[in-house]
């Protein structure tokens, strides 16, 4: 199997818990796709991503085998839509890093951020900076390789929600 370079995708920040108005969501996502055939050799992922609602533009980096997706400001897209798009094209996500406003990642203790029915559980410590944007990587099943997922099930065995594999729960870690 191909060796997959893991890249982080930033998630756009989701609405703050207390706020009624939704801020812009994920602004950018960097997807590394894998599959049985050359993912960059097929235009399928590119087309699927471009056709996804809320997507502003898609650029491909052939050196790192990455698709960078930029979202429209009003877009409320969730990672699962990207995962479904890649899988529909016949490939799998090897890594997903999303860019979000740092403010939205402030969570206390074990609490998770809830947005539009989806939950984001921060797996590492809170971020010190509260300005600008942060890149976080999604570690749930379908966003990492199968091999990695098996390892992660052991690493995150203490986090009850991780093993449940709820498609609307995202377990994330900030990436520097």
């Amino acid at each position, binding site marked *: 199997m191909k060796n997959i370079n893991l890249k982080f995708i930033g998630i756009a920040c989701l609405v703050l818990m207390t706020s009624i108005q939704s801020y812009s969501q994920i602004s950018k996502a960097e997807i590394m796709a894998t599959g049985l055939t*050359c993912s*960059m*050799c*097929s*235009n399928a992922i590119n087309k699927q991503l471009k056709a996804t609602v809320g997507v502003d533009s898609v650029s491909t980096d052939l050196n790192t085998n990455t698709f960078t997706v930029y979202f429209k400001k009003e877009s409320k897209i969730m990672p699962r839509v990207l995962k479904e798009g890649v899988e529909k094209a016949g490939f799998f996500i090897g890594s997903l890093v999303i860019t979000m406003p740092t403010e939205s990642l402030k969570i206390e203790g074990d609490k998770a951020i809830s947005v539009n029915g989806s939950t984001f559980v921060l797996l590492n410590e809170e971020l010190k900076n509260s300005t600008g944007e942060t890149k976080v990587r999604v570690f749930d099943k379908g966003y990492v390789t199968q091999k990695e997922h098996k390892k992660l099930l052991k690493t995150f065995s203490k986090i009850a929600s991780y093993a449940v594999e709820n498609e609307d729960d995202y377990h994330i870690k900030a990436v520097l």
Partner: protein
Amino acid sequence: MKKIMLLLSLIISISTASAQMKIGDSLPDFQLKNNKDTTINLVSLKGKTVLIDFWASWCAPCRLANKKLAPLYNEYKDENFEIVGISLDTDKTKWMNAIQKDKLAYEQLIDAKGFDAKSALLFGVEELPNSYLFDASGKLVAINPTEEEIIMQIKNKVE
């Protein structure tokens, strides 16, 4: 008046965008630059059995396929057979290096815009490698032919 013009141009661009090569279509009147910076028009290839092969330096399966195309060309080039490689590489240096590395002796054209390249859109290329076999009268007879099919066409044993 303006509105009609806008509508017309919209219709025209939509129809060209959905244009795709089908069996029976002719070699298109389309030109690209080759690796010696000369402009080549595809239509000029009429008269020979032509295999147009879309590839890119970063496409591993394409590089594998090149290994078979290079000797195929060398073997049949004196039998009125031509291969034309059209690369969708956006990095020309990588393209030139690949030509050298794969020892490609046949015509190498470049349309440096990946899957958005005009030739890719014209031919309807959605994945790489992708090849189109034209007979000596300039008609498309096969898409992604096998080596056997190519040789049959060269030997003109196909009806």
